[in-house]
């Protein structure tokens, strides 16, 4: 089901939507919907990169599997927030267990 929502846009925002619509040969509504989807993905990835989302939460928000989320992070070149110290701690933990 598609809902109708009225949104106030300034001249610059409208100009950008028209330009994208012309560039991609799509209707303005289709362009706005696409921008919302891609904007949501961008914001979600940003929240993940800043450590405000776990990978599970990110996958859930984007409606994709964790495996697909790992591929997406890889495609966007988003580095893991892992330091060399984290690696050393991990190695030490592994040495202690059989």
């Amino acid at each position: 089901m598609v809902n109708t929502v009225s949104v106030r846009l300034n001249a610059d925002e409208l100009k950008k939507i028209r330009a994208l619509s012309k560039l991609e040969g799509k209707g303005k509504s289709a362009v706005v919907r696409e921008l919302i989807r891609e904007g949501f993905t961008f914001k979600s990835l940003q929240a993940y990169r800043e450590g405000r989302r776990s990978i599970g939460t990110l996958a859930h928000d984007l409606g994709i599997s964790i495996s697909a989320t790992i591929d997406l992070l890889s495609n966007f070149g988003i580095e893991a927030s892992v330091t060399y110290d984290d690696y050393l701690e991990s190695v030490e933990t592994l040495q202690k267990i059989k």
Partner: protein
Amino acid sequence: MIVFDASTLIILAKVSILREVLVAHKAVIPPIIQEECTRESTREDAQLIAQLIEEELLAVVEPQRTNRISHITEDFNLHRGETVALHLAWQEKAPLATDDTPTRKACQILNIRSIIAVAFLERLVQRDLISGERALSLIRKFKQYGRYDVETLEAVKAKIKQRRR
């Protein structure tokens, strides 16, 4: 015993050393992690994880819930799978293999030791479960899927080379 969350399990599967890791270490996951990892059954990593569960190299265990951990996981914006994996690690007094930063931070608060995927590589070489040459050839995949920084991967490379001498 090591408890795994979905992130590390999937990275190790994508890098193609999950079987060797599970041969070397007793590993457990809660049912929600099994579901998260095998949901998209057409993916190669999902198929491998399902196969390893069937071969009983990866055990599936349901943990008991405690409110103490639930409160902490809410603070870190963790999803259900990560929360339940933390419960299991806490209950079993076992380390948690996770490559997720908020989950690793929750581990620190709960005094649970955590392990990142690339640490298993050096361990497998040390135990002669994979050759140094193969380990070095897998660094590129760890960069792709684990998304580790250059400093960490260079250090891993150096350690593996040192062991080959």
